[in-house]
């Protein structure tokens, strides 16, 4: 019994780290611009397809395609911000909500158009198999992805705290007006954060593609859960999103295991609702 419990905890942690990685990009965009990016799941999908095609055409292992995914999504993010999102920043909040829906529908169907709705899987990376650690099975690609998630989150954290640009982003997040007065080019910060947010989820896509199937609608569920994770952690809080991701992963697997698997996502959303009733600003939000 403790072995089974331990196994579920390990599994929960691994999916939780993936949620964290998907969510930190979202929370960054959210915090800086106060925009809910509903196309976030589709950025994830594009990251996965990028890694898939690099693997299929050039035989590049997903691990090596991470920088390419990062860069590509960074450019895509900035382009989408510059040409579309920035134009609604001053508009009503509802237009800001809806514009990313439009982008989301557009991107996922662009993928259908170019790559058909078929399912794909990268199956022969060198990250295959499972480790048997004292009777507990640990999937190698998931473990690597978890480590990747931790490293990426730490990098982002350090970037925000140690670099000048990072500090500027943080300042904008806290108070846009004073940041502007301090001489920070908030428009540049916006586009940079949108780019970084997209790039981070591109990295998540590359990791996820090592063990999850890839198809145009793959972003939907990850995206929805990422919203709950971000809101649970507190909008704009990177640490919050990281912790909330892990909590959601654990809740999902343990809830599914001990209660009923068909309710596992309901359990996740329940926990989220209860938390924000008690603490409307989320776990680490302000």
């Amino acid at each position, binding site marked *: 019994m403790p072995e089974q419990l331990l196994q579920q905890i390990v599994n929960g942690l691994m999916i939780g780290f993936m949620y964290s990685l998907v969510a930190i990009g979202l929370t960054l965009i959210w915090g800086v611009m106060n925009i*809910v990016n509903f196309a976030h799941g589709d950025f994830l999908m594009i990251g996965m397809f990028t890694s898939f095609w690099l693997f299929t055409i050039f035989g590049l292992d997903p691990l090596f395609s991470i920088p390419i995914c990062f860069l590509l999504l960074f450019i895509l993010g900035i382009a989408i911000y510059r040409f579309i999102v920035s134009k609604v920043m001053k508009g009503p909040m*509802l237009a800001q909500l*809806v*514009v990313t829906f*439009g982008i989301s529908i557009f991107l996922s169907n662009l*993928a259908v158009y170019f790559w058909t709705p078929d399912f794909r899987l990268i199956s022969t990376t060198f990250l295959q198999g499972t480790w048997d650690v004292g009777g507990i099975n640990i999937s190698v690609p998931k473990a690597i992805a978890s480590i990747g998630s931790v490293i990426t989150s730490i990098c982002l954290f350090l970037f925000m705290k140690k670099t000048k640009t990072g500090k500027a982003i943080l300042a904008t997040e806290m108070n846009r007006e004073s940041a502007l007065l301090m001489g920070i080019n908030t428009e540049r910060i916006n586009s940079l954060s949108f780019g970084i947010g997209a790039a981070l989820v591109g990295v998540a896509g590359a990791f996820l593609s090592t063990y999850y199937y890839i198809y145009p609608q793959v972003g939907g569920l990850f995206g929805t859960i990422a919203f709950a994770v971000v809101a649970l952690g507190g909008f704009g809080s990177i640490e919050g999103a990281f912790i909330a991701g892990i909590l959601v992963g654990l809740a999902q697997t343990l809830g599914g295991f001990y209660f009923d698997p068909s309710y596992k996502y309901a359990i996740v959303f329940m926990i989220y*609702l209860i938390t924000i009733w008690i603490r409307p600003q989320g776990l680490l939000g302000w």
Partner: protein
Amino acid sequence: MKKFTTKQISVTGITLLVLLLFPLVITQTYIIHVMILVFMFGMLGVAWNIMGGYAGMFSFGQAAFFGIGAYTSSFLVVTFHVNPWIGLIAGGVVAAVMAAAIGYPCSNLRGHYFAIATIAFGEIVRIFFNNWKLVNAAEGITLPMVNESFTNFMFHSSKLPYYYIILSFLLIALVICYFVAHSKMGYYFRAIKESHDVARALGVNVVWYRLIAIMISAFLSAMAGTFYAQYILYIDPESVMLLAISIQLVLISMLGGAGTVMGPVIGAAILIPIAEFTRIWLGHKGTGVDMLIYGFLITLISVYQPQGIWGLFANIGKKKNG
């Protein structure tokens, strides 16, 4: 309450007359079906608008109320042979009670937090119905075909009765929305939308008025749900409680013009035919082009017409006057 101008009355009258005569002139069933969908989604949009557009609570879980309405009346019809018209009211009441139960604890939530909470609520309801054996879980409910009549709320030989029923539902919703918008309640709603603190300072009972908005909205959505069930005759959680439906309602209201009485109807009248006809023309090729166009249009409108299409009409009117 302000007086109507002659112009307003005549435009409304003519529009109504056209809509009443429309199915007698254009008899193609498919066009009638699209019109029925326009009215139904228009009604849902109006319902969304009361809480979203006026009171500033952006709901992404409206499909839950729609589904609860559909499920309540269908369950009553199938299990207890209750007349669907009674089921219609029952569904509305159940949805409104549910809305109050969920709305009360969410009283402090604003903006994005509220939006995400409604997504969570909608998903919980869907998952719950998907596993609830009493209402046939995922298998859904098939409504038995009975003799067609107004009392049975079922018509087989023609779509006309459905057309007129949903048109009158839409009108009811519009009248309610109009009175809400132009009454004291409407001003309270808008005050709440601006700022909870300001509303409180003005002596508005924020929690209470938020609840009223949610409950009216839920009741109307549930009515549309019962209509859907009686029209399609088959419901399952995947077809009435999907997040995609909730999102579509937000799109309709926003693109038409949130916070205006007619906005959501305009939104539905534009978006639904686009979705339907692009699917017919392009969907059968299976390339996703229809949705590509749909997504592109949504992006375009929200960038260049962020106040919604209704704003365009209003602007033209203003320019003429000015």
